[in-house]
């Protein structure tokens, strides 16, 4: 069973082998999802795409609902404004999310006992949240009612859905523990 504890300014995360390898797999998938280039020019990676970086080219609204959840419209009621905002900001947002995922993957590559600095914990929290958003879309959890429904009728889920839900719960636990660890630290500082 995984454990998360504060150690000085760092946070130490201990994972079981199977938890670590599963996380490596799903974060690698998330990295791939974020690096998919929606542009017509699919041969060129985002990092070399200067027009996109400078906001000079339109970026298509993602077709994949999971990717759209990661890169949402700025104003769902205004298509034109959302398209403009996407052109100007989506590149940076995607880069920031990919960066978080890279920090998670780097941590996981170090073994089952992972020491994280404050900034690394932040990247992990964001990366875990993004991954959970993607899994929730894949599971059809878009409202609290839908979520309750999933848990209430768990025995009716397919084997793969049931595994995904177990993974989702595990990631929820890790994210919540990391968050409360940082929160208790800032609250501790306020009390001093």
């Amino acid at each position, binding site marked *: 069973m995984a454990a998360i504890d504060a150690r000085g300014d760092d946070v130490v995360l201990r994972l079981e082998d199977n938890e670590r390898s599963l996380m490596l797999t799903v974060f690698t998938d998330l990295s791939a999802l974020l690096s998919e280039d929606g542009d017509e020019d699919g041969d060129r990676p985002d990092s070399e795409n200067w027009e996109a970086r400078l906001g000079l080219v339109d970026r298509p609204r993602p077709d994949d609902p999971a990717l759209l959840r990661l*890169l949402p419209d700025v*104003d769902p009621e205004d298509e034109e404004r959302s398209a403009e905002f996407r052109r100007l900001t989506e590149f940076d*947002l995607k880069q920031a999310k990919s960066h978080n995922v890279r920090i998670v993957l780097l941590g996981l590559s170090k073994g089952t006992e992972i020491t994280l600095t404050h900034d690394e914990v932040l990247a992990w929290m964001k990366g875990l949240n993004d991954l*959970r958003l993607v899994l*929730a879309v894949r599971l059809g959890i878009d409202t609290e009612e839908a979520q309750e429904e999933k848990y209430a009728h768990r025995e009716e889920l397919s084997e793969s859905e049931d595994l995904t839900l177990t993974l989702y719960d595990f990631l929820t636990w890790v994210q919540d523990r990391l968050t409360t660890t940082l929160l208790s630290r800032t609250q501790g500082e306020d009390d001093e």
Partner: protein
Amino acid sequence: MVFNDPVNLMSYVSFVFQSYFGYSEDKAHALMLEVHENGRSVVATGGREAMERDTQAMHEYGLWAACQPDPGSD
């Protein structure tokens, strides 16, 4: 404006409001509960550029956020 979402954890939303907006623990908690109970909450208001920057930041945290012009400002 931040919308409710079954994925975003109460602890995490409260953390984001404290660390990004610099809100107190109590204010962050109250806003988080408002999102949770009312389905949405206006967590910041201001000029278009500042609000778009905040929305972008919320998207980076993975919160479901949007910014819309104040209907009264047209």
